């Protein structure tokens, strides 16, 4: 195993052990889940009464799902031991105690990669878990940034702040796209979520910058049950970036996030994700289970929601960013690169649900599997009866590196309107020996040749990412590819 990969494993491994240690400090609730725990979380969050009610409703529903083994989701093409939900602690206060006093104590390999990715110094500290002075650049950046947004009437804050200050908006929209009854993990999230992000773009406003959770990294202390709500009013535009590409100190094994997007008439929301959480060691031990529900609704006519994702992390990824195309002439897009290696398992794709007339959707999915990993695309395109002249184009390409990995495609089509036009293309290819030979004959090393070919394979998707994000995505892919083939 190459050193870059090694450090990722080492760093994350140590965090993993740290995360599951049993000593309980003052701000962590004991393991297990019952109504008292929900009430305790709610009181720690200083929830208003309606929020507590909402949590309890979701919790009671989740209990019925848990009790009925038929309701526990098993359909995905993934394998993992049954999760013991009573063995998990559901709340720890934001702003975990720093592990180190200075960057000198951090693994130099980790620092090397931060530098390779071009991560600013202060941000490196946060990511590595180093104590950060209260008056640092990123805080002032965040402040200036908030002032700029306020001028346009844009609200961008933590979910907790939103509940406190914008309760009417939260009550109106939360659960309107992903109700707690949607699925097992959505129910769990709705009961126990600790924080997340909230974003509101007023009518006619084009958000002047890419909104990123990166700016909130200090205050976030992101829990394992995050919730994001994005509302784009009529004619507005926002590009939202989730996560950051640096290897992230993470102490939770089970992640069950919910993201909801509402796009009103002529609004456009572009949501980009780079996910590289700890994937577990070579034998598949440890690693994050990432069970996410992401969905947007094109509520108004002519609205557009676009998901772009680069998934390289987690032991298990179970994720289907979807779009409900309700407004006439609305557009849904899904662009995805999923890279798996070691024993990683990814089952990811999308759902495009066409309700309105003249709606169109595009799905482009690229799966790359290496080592003994499994990579599945699962996608549903549904054209409802009233959705006349709906169009969908789907393209799923898989690339295999080596012969012990797997690539699978599970497309589902439900067409209930004869005017629909649906196209599906799928390819599976191995990195060709002739392509490798060609590159190497030009003096390019084996490792560089693989990077070149894989990045070429993902080119269509990477160009969809906002520029700076795309640059980081390329670097991240290169790091992940190191030593994954040989």
């Amino acid at each position, binding site marked *: 195993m190459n050193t870059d990969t090694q450090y990722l494993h080492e760093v994350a491994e140590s965090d993993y052990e740290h995360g599951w240690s049993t000593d309980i400090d003052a701000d962590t609730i004991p393991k297990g889940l019952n109504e008292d725990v929900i009430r305790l979380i709610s009181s720690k969050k200083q929830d208003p009464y309606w929020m507590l009610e909402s949590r309890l409703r979701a919790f009671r529903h989740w209990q019925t799902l848990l009790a009925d083994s038929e309701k526990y989701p098993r359909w995905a093409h993934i394998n993992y031991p049954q999760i013991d939900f009573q063995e998990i602690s559901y709340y720890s206060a934001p702003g975990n105690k720093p592990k180190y006093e200075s960057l000198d104590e951090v693994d130099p390999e980790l620092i090397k990669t931060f530098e390779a990715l071009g991560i600013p110094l202060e941000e490196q500290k946060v990511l590595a878990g180093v104590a950060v002075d209260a008056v640092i650049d990123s805080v002032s950046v965040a402040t200036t940034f908030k002032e700029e947004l306020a001028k346009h009437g844009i609200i961008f804050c933590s979910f907790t702040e939103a509940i406190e200050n914008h309760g009417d908006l939260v009550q109106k929209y939360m659960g309107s796209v992903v109700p707690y009854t949607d699925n097992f993990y959505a129910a769990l999230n709705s009961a126990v979520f600790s924080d997340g992000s909230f974003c509101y773009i007023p009518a006619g406003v084009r958000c002047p910058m890419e909104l990123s959770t990166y700016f909130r990294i200090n205050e976030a202390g992101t829990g394992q049950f995050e919730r994001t709500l994005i509302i784009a009013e009529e004619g507005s535009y926002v590009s939202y970036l989730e996560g950051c590409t640096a290897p992230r100190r993470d102490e939770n094994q089970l992640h069950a996030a919910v993201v909801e997007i509402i796009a009103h008439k002529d609004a456009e929301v572009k949501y980009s994700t780079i996910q590289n959480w700890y994937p577990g060691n070579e034998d598949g031990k440890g690693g994050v289970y990432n069970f996410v529900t992401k969905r947007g609704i094109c509520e108004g006519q002519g609205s557009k929601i676009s998901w772009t994702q680069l998934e390289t992390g987690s032991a298990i990824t179970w994720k289907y960013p979807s779009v409900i195309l309700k407004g006439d002439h609305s557009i849904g897009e899904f662009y995805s690169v999923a890279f798996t290696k070691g024993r990683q398992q990814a089952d990811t794709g999308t759902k495009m649900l066409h309700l309105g007339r003249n709606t169109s959707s595009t799905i482009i999915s690229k799966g790359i599997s290496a080592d003994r990993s499994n990579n599945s695309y699962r996608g549903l395109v549904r054209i409802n009866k009233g959705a006349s002249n709906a169009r969908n184009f789907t393209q799923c390409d898989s690339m295999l590196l080596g012969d012990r990995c797997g690539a699978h495609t599970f497309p589902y089509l439900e067409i209930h309107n004869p005017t629909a036009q649906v196209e599906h293309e799928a390819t599976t290819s191995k990195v*060709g020996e*002739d*392509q490798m*030979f*060609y*590159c*190497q*004959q*030009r*003096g*390019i*090393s*084996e490792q*560089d*040749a693989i990077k*070149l*070919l894989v*990045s*070429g*394979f*993902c*080119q*269509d998707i990477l160009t969809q990412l906002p520029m700076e994000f795309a640059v980081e995505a390329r670097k991240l892919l290169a790091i992940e590819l190191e030593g994954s083939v040989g």
Partner: protein
Amino acid sequence: MKPIIEIKGLKASVEGMPILKGVDLTINSGEVHAIMGPNGSGKSTLASVLAGNEDYEIEDGTVDYLGHDLLEMDVDERAREGVFLAFQYPVELPGVSTMNFLKQAVNSVREHRGQEPLGAAALLRLAKDKAALIELDARLKQRSVNQGFSGGEKKRNEIFQLAMLEPTLAILDETDSGLDIDALRSVSHGVNQLRNPDRGFLIITHYQRLLNYIEPDFVHVMAGGRLVRSGGRDLAVELEEHGYDWIQTDH
């Protein structure tokens, strides 16, 4: 004039089937050698073996390249040491931009030679000059490597890369096949411009018409995995008149 490559008694097989049955050939700096021969005689195998294609098993013989044992070197190492193969069938690299590909190739070679890597601007300038040399459509550089190129464009692109990488030994594997007369002219013109006293060429071709444009110093005829006849330019003309049957029956 010094030897670039000395091949002695080279035998190679594919899946147990012998293809090269003892090839001897020396190319000195500044020389252009042409190997002609019927299909299946082993011409292209020789090119692949010299470039390091692992589909072929080396059974016997030695290849000395500028004092190194060429057969011990990896494919990319050979390339960085100045061995260039213009492929008979250049592969497509979907999504890999031609300029990015060239940048990596050129800079790997430069780094190996102890030269500074070229920046984007310098590389573009170089590419512009070299593309003009072989009349490569400038738009091709904007595309993915060889993707959607016509047969002729792919072959021009090979010679363009040859010009960019400035090898010591350039091997052209049936570069003329599939070229129309105009493409053949411009590719030949490019190759002629690239001839110089420090460089050696090994040109593999089925037809002698290429040799009307690129005048070789030596012509060899390959049959049954051996070089059965060697001579000057006139040997190619003789072959043209009598056909390969003449060599084979004679042999």
